[in-house]
Each structure stands twice: as C-alpha cells, then as structure tokens.
C-alpha cells in the first residue's frame, strides 16, 4: 500500500494570500504575512464571523493576485477546526465556487494541498483554490474553556494560531512546484492528554516522514528544509529523538511551524497549533524563501490531532494524522 504519489507534470502554486492574528503579528514571521489584524473580533460582533471574514478575504486576495476570476476556478477545497467546519462552509457560500469541505484538524491545509495537487495532476481540474483558517478564541471555546477563565496551562499545551490562508494551485508554469505528496494514515499510540497534542501527533509525523523517503527513494539530505505542522517544542524534541533511535538525523534542517510562528517569550507554552499554524508558516515564510531561491526543496508535514471535546471527556485516546507535500523551485 503506497502512500506517496509523484507527479509527471507537477502542479504549481499560482498565488497565495495570508492573514494573521494580533499575536502572530508580534511573532518572528510577521513581515511575511499579507495582513495582520489587530483585534480578534476583526470589526465583527462574533469571533466566528471574524474567522469567516479572514478566510473569505484571503480567498479573494489569492484570486486577485493571480488575476483569476472565481468562474475560472474548478474547485474550492477548504476546512477549519470548528464543528461542522462552519468557517469553510459559510465562506464557500459567499464564493460560489464548486466546493469540497475538508477536516483533518490542524493538518487540514496539507490535506487540501494533497487533494488539490492530485485533482490537477490527474487532469480533473485546471485551477483549485485551497483555503484554511483557525482562530484562537473560536477554538479555545469549542475545545477548552471560556477565553477569560483563569487556567494554569501545562508546559506541553499549545496556543491556537489565529489566521487564514488561501493558495491557488494550477497547471503549467510557476515558480513553486509540487512534485510529490504522501497521504498519512490515522494512527493512535494511546496518549489521551488533550494538553499534549504534540506527543499524540509525533507517531503520525514519524510514519509519514519515513514512508515519504522510503517510497520515493530520496536521500535524507535531499530537502533543504523540512517542517512539521504543529508538534511544538515538546513534540519536535520527541520526533528528533525517535529519528535518532533509527539512526536518522536531519540536523537543523528539520523544524516545526508551531515553534517558528511565535517568540519563546510570547507565553504560548510549547508553541503554536491550529490549522492556520502550518498554513501561515508554509504560505508566508516558506513560499517566500522558495520564490527568492534561498531554499529550493521543502517538505512540509501537516500534523493533526483528531480529537473532540466529547472523546476527551469520555476518556478516549487521541488519533493523529500527518500529510506530506513537497514544494520545489527551480
């Protein structure tokens, strides 16, 4: 059962747009985002509406940057973290592009890229718009506690990234290509602590990462940069340790978007998480580096903890998933 697909005619990134929240706008990658909002409400009366507004705005901005009309886009693939993926669904209503809603928790962006690339490479679409969003306050209230409730979090807890990202994929010529993808398996290693999602997701990232190299036959030093989605500091440390036990070391080339998006002193415990975490780092920072030729080969691994508040309260363990997408510029 092969999980990797290599494309003879790699799909390309036509355009991308990013909006980040206030805290992310104070982070080390702030200058790479198209826009930073200064308030979690973003001039709306609810956080849910603010999240939808961000997603709609990046979707329209990505189309504008590529000078593409909505009518020219074959499919809109989008998802978010909220119940019934309402952010994506409500934005799809406004966009009016044929729509497929996605959910892979924080790996949703990479799930969208995997599917979008396959739709284009398979000849089923010429242009696919991939969108994703997450919002600190909407996630916090759904998965955890009221935002103003006083809680002392553990060192492994993570901070949900506020932001939205849209990427327009297409065929033909483009600076950034997607030569191959690896679809992850949902795995469960029996961890049940909802404030340690990094630990729960590491086995998924490990499995997808090693499968990617095994199935493609690429050397471990092939990529200039590899980044997991949101394992954060503890998860990243675990992954490096597991790889070391297998005799594999990527050194400083292997990093994590959840670590990159915030400064350590921003009081985010282990780091960032959320669907927009890997999306903002990939489409903000990494695409910039690829466009400028600072790196030419990147492997991103979106990681998702597939839990809900109900499964947590019922004491069930946390399944996790990781999808890999490689981006290369020539």
């Amino acid at each position, binding site marked *: 059962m092969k999980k990797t697909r290599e494309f003879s005619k790699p799909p390309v990134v036509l355009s991308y747009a990013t909006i980040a929240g206030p805290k992310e706008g104070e982070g080390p990658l702030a200058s790479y985002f198209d826009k930073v909002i200064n308030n979690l409400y973003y001039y709306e009366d609810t*956080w849910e509406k603010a999240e939808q507004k961000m997603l709609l705005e990046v979707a329209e901005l990505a189309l504008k940057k590529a000078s593409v009309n909505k009518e020219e886009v074959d499919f809109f693939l989008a998802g978010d973290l909220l119940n019934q993926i309402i952010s994506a669904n409500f934005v799809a209503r406004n966009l009016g592009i044929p729509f497929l809603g996605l959910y892979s928790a924080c790996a949703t962006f990479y799930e969208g890229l995997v599917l979008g690339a396959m739709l284009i490479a398979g000849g089923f679409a010429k242009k696919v718009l991939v969108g994703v969003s997450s919002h600190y306050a909407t996630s916090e209230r759904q998965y955890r506690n*009221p*935002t103003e409730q006083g809680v*002392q979090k553990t060192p492994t807890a993570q901070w949900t990234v506020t932001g939205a990202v849209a990427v327009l994929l297409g065929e033909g010529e483009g600076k950034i290509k997607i030569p191959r993808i690896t679809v992850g398996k949902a795995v469960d290693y029996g961890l049940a602590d909802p404030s340690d999602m990094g630990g729960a997701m590491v086995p998924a990232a490990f499995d997808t990462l090693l499968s990617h190299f095994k199935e493609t036959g690429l050397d471990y030093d092939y990529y200039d940069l590899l980044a997991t989605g949101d394992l954060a500091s503890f998860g990243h440390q*675990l992954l490096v340790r597991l790889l070391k036990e297998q005799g594999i070391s990527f050194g400083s080339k292997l990093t994590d978007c959840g670590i990159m998006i915030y400064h350590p002193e921003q009081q985010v415990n282990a780091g960032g998480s959320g669907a927009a975490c890997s999306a903002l780092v990939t489409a903000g920072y990494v695409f910039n580096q690829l466009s400028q030729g600072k790196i030419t080969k990147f492997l991103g691994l979106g990681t998702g903890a597939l839990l809900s508040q109900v499964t947590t309260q019922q004491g069930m363990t946390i399944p996790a998933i990781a999808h890999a997408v490689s981006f290369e510029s020539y």
Partner: protein
Amino acid sequence: MVLDKNQYQKTVEKIKPKPPAVKNGILAFLMGGFVCFLGEILFHVLTGFGIPEKESYTYVSIIFVLIAAILTGVGIYDDLVRIFGAGLIVPITGFANSMVSPALEHKQEGLVLGVGAKLFTVAGPVIIYGLISSLIVAILLRGLGKL
C-alpha cells in the same frame, strides 16, 4: 519501521516536561495569602465604620466577587491566574471568574440559551459536589452526635 506503542508511551512519560510545581506552589501560596491579607484589612476597615462583624464578612466576599468580575471583564484575571494559579482560583475571586467568564463568552448566543444556559458550566460542578459533600459531612456529624 513501526514504533512500539508501549515503548513510545514510556518515552513520552519519561521526557514530558512537568509543570514547575514548587514555583507554582510558592506563587500560589504568596498570592493566596495576599488575598486573605487584603480581606483582613477590608474586614477591619468595615468594622471600623461600625458595621457588625458578621455582616462585614459578607461585605468582604461581595467586594472581592465584584473586583474579580471586573478584572475578568477587562481581561486581566486570566493573565493573573496564569502566573499565580491556585492562589487566585481557590479564593472566592476564582469562583466569580468561573461565573463571569462563561457569561461573557456565551453572550453572543443570546441571553437565554447563551448566558442563561452556560452560566454554570464551570461553577455548576463545584456547587453540586459542594452540596453533596456538605450533606455527607452533616450526616456523619449528626451520627457522631456533634450536630
């Protein structure tokens, strides 16, 4: 290469960073003590105004609840709890925070199904199990002939 599940769980438990219990304990102790100290001062001020002792205790609680509610409303209380932990969760101020925060959070869903229905989501279990345990203690004391 498949990871061993038990081995993995052991590794996670072994290297997982633990909350700084001693530091958290000291900060909680100092802040908890400081809240009690303020309560004591307030109590003496109130009795100084000629308010009877029994009523003064009630006023102290009411004033603390008000302060905590305001601090929650302006978004400071959760930041303080992040630092002082149980020192601000255990006093009656923590109870106020656990009522005000869901009320603020759910006002977007309306006054009935939002604020009304969600007001006790955090404080509810405290009240229920507080009542049950006080009932058990009362029965035990009555059995021992102390009540």
